[in-house]
């Protein structure tokens, strides 16, 4: 420990502590601009200068570490003069548009001026003209005149995202932040720069002029767009959600949000939200609003009649309370026709120990099995990069390359080849190390086998039994596995036992007429491996009940719809991929008569319980056990064929409910390796006809060199593109005649 005094007060802090933090410890607040606790100091703004006895110059508290016996002064005349000087300089070129600035009320420049300025503002000087309202993307807008060149935004993109789309332009007083002409700031993490900009230079386009921070009410919530479960602060004004901010949880999100999470909140105000229970007559498709009592009555009667021949599908988007209530319903019905894995997820539970997100920080090897972090668990992409910077090595097995040259070894596998590759990997790891210069799985094995703290991220889509063997081979060296697949709270659904059968088989049975009632807890179409099968099942089952927020394709086909409250409309818990149970607090009341999921499910089960009981019961459940399951080997595709591989994308058709993300709405596309593009005679951006597995449709062609040359990538969750069904099948891709393309456009 180091002993020092700050303004005469003695403090003791660990070696390596910044003067800034030591001062805080001593109760002295040192103002800052450029310093950000999640990034390396740059000591550029000079706001934090303090006096250190026996040193000739003032020192930046944000960059200088403490030394034994140091005497620091944060309020001496010299310090106060320097501070006033810096503020005065910053204000000299600062525009006077605070009244119309979105940052008003939470601007560090305003706050620091209020607390430390107190100088009469000096003479008006002609300000240097810079550009105002420069749209950097559809989400972020820049005001160059307000920028104080703290470099937080550029450093974030360079240091944290490792994708420097933002850079400084010019020098001296003309220095400004910018992108390259014609290239948008389209990073998936762009929104973080808005939050960390200390002034109103970077602001949110969706949030623009919507509210002033002091009018906003905040509730602590959790993002439910992906399984990471980043902590966030949701804000509303006059009953309308206005924005989402990060609520740093070092164990989960490390202080960041991705743009899907940050900008994906307006769906709760979509005009087509279900506000009341709805009955639908199949033949006429006529819809009638119902009162809850009647709707529940009707539902209970139908479910009771169907009993064990009721299927319950979905559940990976429910709250933990809802998942427990669903379990009660399943028990009451005595049905085994239950599965939350309606998409590509096959194994929600990993063999061997589970990992925690924070284990990544201490890992020396990170192994990705079929996971593309940026798409599947975006914020973990940043965490993995940080771990790699700290010295961990990355090994990748997957159908797509990911994290580029950061991977020490990559084994690219053909579509549906993950299981076989993991099998080979398990064998290779168990063998003595291969000679240097190994490739593919052998190279991956080499990287992994040298590790002492291996963390595995697994899609859970294939290779369960093989992974179990790999886990065994790694033994003590494995820290644990995180399963990234499935719906955001798939881990909670698994723990609550909502996986008694197989969604595919249940739907097949339903399509055969073997199911009498179907309870839909999710939209089945979003991730469905086979949308046709879903369609047939929904037509055949006599009673379809949907619990839903919005008229999804499934809900729009149900006989009875019960409206649910959104996560920001209830106080409950959600479960993330670690199995962490995180509380969410209600920010808004549910619209109309929508109700929390657990209440509806308890009512359906005819059970009574309160929230605390449900959560306690959830926590008391044992960890689900891994069940090894045989997987059929995929039929080898015809030689030379293009084979489809599907995967998640950050902005899928779910954004159709988000007014702030309209521009991100994906059109069906197919990505192929540039070499394959050339071979097919296609150009990026062109329209092409995609054929295969009984599907035929038009897609936009994109180039993607992360793929093997004989694969076609199809995004999941895009309406009009059955990516899941085509996954692993041979497909054809041919140019649409230019004229035809023009005609259709």
């Amino acid at each position, binding site marked *: 420990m180091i002993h020092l005094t700050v303004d005469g007060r003695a403090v003791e802090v660990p070696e390596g502590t910044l003067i800034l933090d030591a001062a805080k410890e001593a109760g002295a607040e040192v103002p800052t601009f450029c310093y950000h606790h999640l990034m390396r100091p740059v000591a550029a703004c000079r706001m934090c200068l303090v006096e250190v006895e026996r040193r000739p110059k003032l020192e930046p508290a944000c960059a200088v570490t403490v030394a034994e016996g140091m005497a620091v002064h944060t309020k001496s005349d010299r310090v106060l003069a320097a501070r006033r000087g810096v503020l005065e300089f910053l204000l000299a070129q600062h525009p006077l548009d605070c009244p119309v600035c979105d940052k008003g009320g939470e601007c560090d420049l305003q706050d620091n001026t209020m607390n430390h300025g107190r100088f009469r503002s000096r003479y008006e000087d002609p300000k240097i003209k810079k550009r105002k309202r420069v749209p950097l993307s559809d989400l972020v807008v820049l005001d160059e005149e307000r920028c104080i060149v703290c470099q937080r935004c550029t450093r974030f993109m360079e240091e944290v995202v490792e*994708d*420097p*789309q*933002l*850079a*400084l*332009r*010019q*020098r001296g007083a003309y220095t400004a932040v*910018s*992108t*390259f*002409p*014609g*290239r948008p700031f389209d990073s998936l993490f762009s929104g973080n720069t808005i939050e960390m900009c200390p002034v109103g230079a970077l602001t949110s386009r969706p949030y623009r002029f919507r509210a002033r921070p002091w009018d906003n009410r905040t509730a602590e919530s959790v993002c439910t767009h992906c399984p990471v479960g980043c902590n966030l602060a949701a804000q509303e004004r006059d009953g309308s959600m206005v924005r989402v901010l990060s609520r740093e949880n070092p164990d989960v999100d490390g202080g960041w949000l991705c743009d899907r999470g940050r900008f994906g909140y307006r769906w709760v105000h979509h005009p087509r939200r279900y506000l009341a229970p709805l009955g639908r007559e199949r033949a006429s498709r006529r819809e009638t609003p119902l009162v809850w009592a009647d709707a529940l009555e009707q539902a209970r009667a139908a479910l009771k009649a169907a009993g064990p021949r009721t299927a319950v599908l979905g559940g990976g988007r429910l709250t933990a309370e809802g998942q427990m209530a669903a379990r009660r319903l399943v028990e009451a019905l005595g049905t085994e026709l239950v599965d939350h894995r309606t998409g590509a997820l096959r194994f929600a539970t990993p063999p061997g120990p589970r990992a925690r997100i924070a284990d990544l920080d201490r890992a020396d090897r990170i192994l990705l099995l079929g996971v593309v972090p940026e798409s599947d668990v975006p914020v973990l992409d940043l965490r993995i990069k940080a771990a790699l910077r700290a010295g961990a090595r990355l090994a990748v097995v997957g159908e797509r390359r990911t994290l580029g040259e950061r991977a020490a070894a990559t084994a690219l596998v053909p579509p549906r080849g993950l299981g076989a590759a993991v099998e080979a990997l398990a064998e290779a790891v168990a063998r003595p190390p291969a000679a240097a210069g190994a490739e593919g799985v052998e190279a991956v094995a080499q990287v992994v086998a040298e590790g002492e703290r291996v963390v595995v991220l697994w899609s859970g889509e294939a290779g369960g039994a093989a992974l179990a063997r790999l886990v065994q081979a790694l033994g003590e060296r494995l820290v644990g596995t995180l399963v990234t697949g499935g719906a955001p709270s798939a881990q909670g659904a698994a723990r609550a036992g909502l996986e008694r059968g197989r969604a595919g088989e249940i739907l097949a049975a339903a399509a055969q007429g073997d199911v009498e009632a179907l309870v839909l807890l999710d939209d089945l179409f979003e991730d469905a491996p086979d949308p046709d099968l879903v369609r047939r099942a929904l037509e055949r089952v006599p009673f379809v009940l949907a619990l839903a927020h919005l008229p999804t394709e499934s809900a729009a086909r149900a006989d009875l719809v019960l409206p649910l409250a959104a996560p920001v409309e209830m106080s409950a818990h959600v479960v993330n991929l670690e199995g962490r149970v995180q509380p969410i607090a209600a920010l808004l009341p549910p619209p109309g008569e929508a109700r929390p999921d657990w209440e509806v499910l308890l009512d359906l089960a005819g059970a009574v319980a309160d929230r605390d009981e449900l959560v306690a019961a959830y926590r008391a459940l044992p960890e689900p056990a891994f069940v090894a399951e045989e997987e059929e080997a995929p039929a080898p595709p015809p030689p030379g064929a293009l084979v489809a591989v599907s995967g998640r994308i950050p902005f899928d058709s779910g954004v159709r409910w988000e007014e702030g993300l309209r521009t991100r709405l994906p059109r069906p596309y197919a990505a192929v390796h540039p070499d394959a593009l050339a071979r097919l005679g296609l150009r990026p951006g062109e329209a092409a006809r995609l054929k295969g597995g009984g599907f035929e449709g038009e897609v936009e062609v994109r180039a993607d060199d992360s793929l093997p040359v004989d694969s076609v990538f199809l995004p999941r969750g895009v309406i009009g593109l059955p990516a899941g069904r085509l996954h692993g099948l041979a497909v054809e891709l041919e140019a649409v005649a230019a004229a035809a393309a023009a005609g259709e456009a």
Partner: protein
Amino acid sequence: MISEARRQKAMEIIRGFPQKSSAVIPLLHLWQDEEGYLSDDAIAEVAEIMGMPPAEVQEVVSFYSMFHRRPLGRYHIEVCRSLSCALMGGRDILDHLRRRLGVGLNEPTPDGLFSVGAVECLARCDLAPVGQVNLEYTDRLTPEGVDRLLADLRARAEGGGAGA
């Protein structure tokens, strides 16, 4: 499109450094020497060869005063405006040139023949006032000398001669 010859040269420059990143400024010089200025395309090309995001290459370009984002005159005449030269009349020469040619700084004459720039101390202050024509030094500038220089350059251009 980058010509094969230039790509070769670029690769040779890159190989000359222990780390690739160092090659970006030399490559920008190479592009500017051959094209006269650095267009968006030029920056994108250098970015591609360097494997750098174009925003970062642009950052480098915009920081250094010798890189130009717009075309200059065929003869770019620069005059030092720093103290030692200014004490000996350097700024008067600069004004004289701009009046003669009727242009702003770094703005080519309509015929594209000349442009005028102001530069900081060129480390030849003993010969003040100092200037450069297409980066070759010229010194002890006087208004009359500058007029002669313009006439010579014009004659050379009309004679179809190469640059300075």
